[in-house]
């Protein structure tokens, strides 16, 4: 029975053109652009992606925290990743999105410049963060290599951690 099941699953996998042997070895990510770089976070950490709408400024917080917004009845902080990463603020445009991420009980919205794509990447293709920036404080979980590009994978837990 289970063999049959496996066969079917394998077949389906092949039909989708993803004949990567075991799903354990694959990480699913969602990629996005901030400034010039492409970053990614695990797909399961994303609660939803919404188009920008109005938010309310909150006083006495670092500049990269834009404020709070209402996501269907919950009040959620909004963080501008551009400013958090030391890039200048930029006006929101058609491609700007709010990335709502969840880690354990913490939820926050992050402003990103542009969404790229859902990415399936083999675990073996993910390298550690460069030595110079590794350690507990870094936001970088690892670096994913795909044919022509390099994607920085971010730690969601760290992003959602209050650091002021």
């Amino acid at each position, binding site marked *: 029975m289970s063999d049959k099941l496996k066969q079917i699953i394998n077949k389906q996998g092949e039909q989708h053109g993803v004949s990567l042997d075991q799903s354990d070895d694959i990480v699913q990510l969602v990629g996005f652009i901030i400034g010039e770089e492409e970053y990614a976070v695990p797909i399961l950490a994303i609660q939803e992606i919404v188009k920008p709408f*109005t*938010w*309310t*400024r*909150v*006083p*006495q*917080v670092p500049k990269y*925290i834009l*404020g*709070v*917004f*209402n996501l269907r*009845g*919950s*009040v*959620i*902080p909004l963080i501008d990743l551009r400013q958090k990463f030391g890039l200048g603020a930029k*006006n929101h445009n058609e491609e700007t999105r709010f990335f709502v991420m969840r880690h354990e*009980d*913490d*939820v*926050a919205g992050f402003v990103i410049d542009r969404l790229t794509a859902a990415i399936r990447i083999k675990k073996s293709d993910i390298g550690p963060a460069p030595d110079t920036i590794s350690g507990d404080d870094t936001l970088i979980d690892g670096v994913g290599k795909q044919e022509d590009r390099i994607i920085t994978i971010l730690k969601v837990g760290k992003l*959602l951690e*209050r650091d002021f």
Partner: protein
Amino acid sequence: MDEFQEILQDFLVESFELVEQLDSDLVELESTPEDLELLNGIFRVAHTVKGASSFLNFDVLTHLTHHMEDVLNKARHGELVITPDIMDVILESVDLMKRLLETIRDTSADAGIDVNACVVRLDKCVGGDGNVEVVSVEAAPEEEAPPVEETPVEEETADEADDIDYDNMDADELEAEIERLLQERQNEDKAKREAKIAAGEKVVSIEADEPAPEPTPEPEPTPEPAPVSTPAPVTPPPPPPPAAPRAESNDDAKAAAPAKKAAAVEQTIRVDVKRLDHLMNLIGELVLAKNRLIKINDDVEERYEGEEFLEELNQVVSIVSLVTTDLQIAVMKTRMLPIGKVFNKFPRMIRDLTRELNKKIELEISGEDTELDKSIVEEVGDPLVHIIRNSCDHGIETPEERLTKDKPETGVIKLKAYNEGNQIVIQIDDDGKGLDVGMLKSKSLEKGIITEKEADMMSDKEAFGLIFKPGFSTAAQVTNVSGRGVGMDVVKTNIEKLNGIIDIDSELGIGTSMKLKIPLTLAIIQALLVGVQEEHYAIPLASVLETVRISKDEIYTVEGRNVMRLRDDVLSLVHIGDIFEVERILDSSEHAYVVVLGLGTQKLGLIVDTLVGQEEIVIKSLGEYLKGIEGVAGATIRGDGGVTLIVDVVALMDIAKNVKATALVEGGSGAGQISNEKTKASDYTVMIVDDSKTDRVIMRKALEPLGVTLVEASDGQEALNTLKQGDHNFDAMLIDIEMPRMDGYSLATEIKKYNRYKNLPLIAVTSRTGKSDRMRGVESGMVEYITKPYSADYLSSVVQRNVNFKSEFLS
């Protein structure tokens, strides 16, 4: 195991309820030692706890309650007179019992507390009859281990004091006697039940009614119901009926204690608080949705004035709003507890304090039925303890002192609670020596809490407020009871946490009166919405004393602080914009509003630009990430879906002290005009605002030949956002009047609020030709009014004129 936990939970809930009742009953008992009904009630509590704890194998607790029961049983039968000394021991044992229950709650076991000393003292109270007691003392711990075995013993001791001498019976005789008594009891019950059923009542109600006749002095049946409850399954003979009386008598024991005062027992069910909290959250969502619905209704009303379906919509909205409000009140009520739950512990406390301080004090409680939200009831206990202690220690004088002052020897502390509007007021009055303003000031000076200058400026009320300062104590020496200067500080913090207000009144030599005004509930509150620049904030209405409209020249600056005269007082002022770092972009008008905030005994004037209105808001937390922002208590979601921050009045008072006043007259810095040199035609930027694509294209066609930069927006809201983003420096705007979301008039009004757009030419392009339309246009700040249809040349020339288009760019 789960089942055990469940039983344990029930046991704890019930026991704590019983014990709470016990305290006040015991104190009452001391003054009326012959009150049999009271004694029976108390005895039953000890007994119920004992029965349940032995069943759950809490040996220490069983041991203790067993001996308490002995003493009380003696007293109940008049063989022992309750003297204050005996009462001390009983109270001590009650305390132990409480501690044991707490230990059980925390650890699920009753180990670690030594009850033997107390047990010995309890035994001493039983005194004279020593020999009988010694036997049971020894017997109890041994036989208690298996609960089945224990029960007959229990009955034995319980019945001991009855006329029949069970001790001298042998086992068989005893069995027979038990059987006889059971039978008797059952028949009695049966007869009663039948009578009731005949009277058309449900069986359930019998149980509720029964305790009433029971406690009356019929010695025979009273000791029975509780003891019988446990032996029922053990006793062999009577086959079918025992189940009924057992359940019934069990209920008796439970119901009897709380029911003593209220004649009828209300039918209740226990509900997990979590469920109520969840319910409250859902109601919160509903209230938000309701607010939103009302807002939409208003918008629709404006847009489709006179349409028939409006009336229907109106009706539905008002029904929804009405029902939501009712529902909210109903759910709030389910969370309400009588404040008596807190008041109950004070008679005992006063009693202990009077003995400790050698004073004579009487406590009068009224309004204990007044109800408060559960979470508030839990918070309000501590402050009251401190206030009452304070009254006992500092307020009420010693009997000798009182006599020399022509006061009755016994001091009176009155504790009462009552509703006042949306608040509950807890008032604590004492007839003690009152607060001495001079003494308060000099003490505070001495301790460096205030400066001399402050002391001079202080009103009496403010001086009374000094007792809440941390580190302040009027007691000449530190006693066991108070004087460490912590207590009243706690009062202030706790009450403020609840958005409450403390009001002190005192007359030297006559007494002190303290009023705690606390909102009824925490989750949904009435708030005053205020506006500053473009932002809105919500202030809990409970903290708002009044609002005043002032002109700027009524504000004085004293030592870098803004103040104003409010009737006879000087009120210090702070601008909300200074606290929340609001950018001053909008032009400030000549007038401002001052929201007078009151908290505890402090007052503060908060300057705001506009008052938006009063609204019911649901408090939501800002979450872990943004917690602890000074001055912000949380957020709420408004009718339009936006988030509004809620002002934390407590923190605001503190922040205000350190905020330097900014000159209010100055209208912000960046008021400079947009007067960039134009070097080419495309330096001119014109925004076209129209909801119709065709119209936008027509305008574009008309203006393109000029070579100016054109930006389009499809409605007022979008236009405003574009403007605010500041990507372009606009030289003129062409605005359609009829647009969704925000129409042309409102857009113009909004734009004119900004300093930097004061001189931006706004040109209306519309098919509305009425005179009144033109007037509105002018009122809202439009400089030109072009009616559709128009010629391309005309539009172009109007624009050129308004942007001061340099003719050399015309090709």
